[in-house]
């Protein structure tokens, strides 16, 4: 991966279940409206590749990482919590600590429902940048926007948080018609389908009036 791609790629590590989907899609939209690219484990559909290798490759390709550790509830089927998100956060932090010079430039944003709740179940990450989204799309968009904005050179303008949130609402309004035109249903969209629609919509939509 070339250096410019590394500097503008964001690894999104979050739950992929239906209950979280609205937040995941809002995060992906915000990443792209900031001028960055969202990457996640769902983008590769190669059964021959071991999952952890696939994830490690994507992490090594991304300077930025968004990690949502909010899913601490026990799985209804197994009565056990899922640990994939904290594991992938650990991989990301490990790459930053032990990787080569480029990997040491990694920056991460950790999300939870409440700001200090993590102290009860993963206190070792104290000192990292942890933000609370309260399960709200507008809030998570503003958090991601402000975080990426602070990492962006001053010569580049990024839409403001409220404007970005409004633009996401416009995109959601048009998504059903967009899917209909390509003979798909919203619930059938793969990650790659969704991101491509976001990219093309952002390229085709009028620019934000002010930032």
């Amino acid at each position, binding site marked *: 991966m070339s250096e410019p791609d590394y500097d503008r790629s964001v690894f999104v590590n979050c739950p992929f279940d239906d209950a979280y989907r609205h937040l995941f899609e809002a995060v992906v939209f915000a990443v792209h409206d900031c001028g960055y690219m969202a990457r996640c484990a769902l983008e590769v559909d190669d059964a021959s590749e071991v999952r952890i290798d696939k994830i490690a490759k994507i992490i090594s390709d991304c300077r930025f990482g968004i990690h949502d550790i909010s899913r601490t509830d026990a799985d209804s089927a197994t009565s056990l919590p899922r640990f994939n998100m904290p594991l992938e956060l650990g991989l990301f932090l490990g790459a930053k600590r032990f990787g080569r010079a480029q990997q040491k430039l990694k920056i991460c944003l950790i999300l939870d429902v409440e700001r200090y709740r993590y102290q009860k179940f993963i206190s070792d990450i104290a000192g990292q940048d942890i933000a609370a989204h309260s399960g709200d799309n507008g809030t998570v968009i503003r958090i991601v926007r402000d975080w990426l904005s602070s990492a962006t050179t001053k010569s580049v303008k990024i839409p403001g948080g409220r404007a970005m949130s409004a*633009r996401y609402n416009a995109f959601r309004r*048009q998504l059903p018609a967009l899917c209909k035109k390509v003979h798909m249903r919203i619930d059938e969209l793969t990650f790659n*389908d969704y991101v491509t629609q976001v990219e093309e919509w952002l390229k085709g939509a009028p620019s934000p009036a002010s930032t």
Partner: protein
Amino acid sequence: MTPKLRTILTRRRATSVPRREIRAAVKAVIAERDEETDLLMRGITSRKKVAGADRK
């Protein structure tokens, strides 16, 4: 130096529908937008603000 608006990046992906079809669909859907959606696209959340700005 005046800051320039960020550029939207794209990446080649294995999609269910070819990107050119998605692009054409986006173009058609955006062209059919109503006034309220147009305001939202421009990041404007309040009609009052727009009306107020027009009067100045």
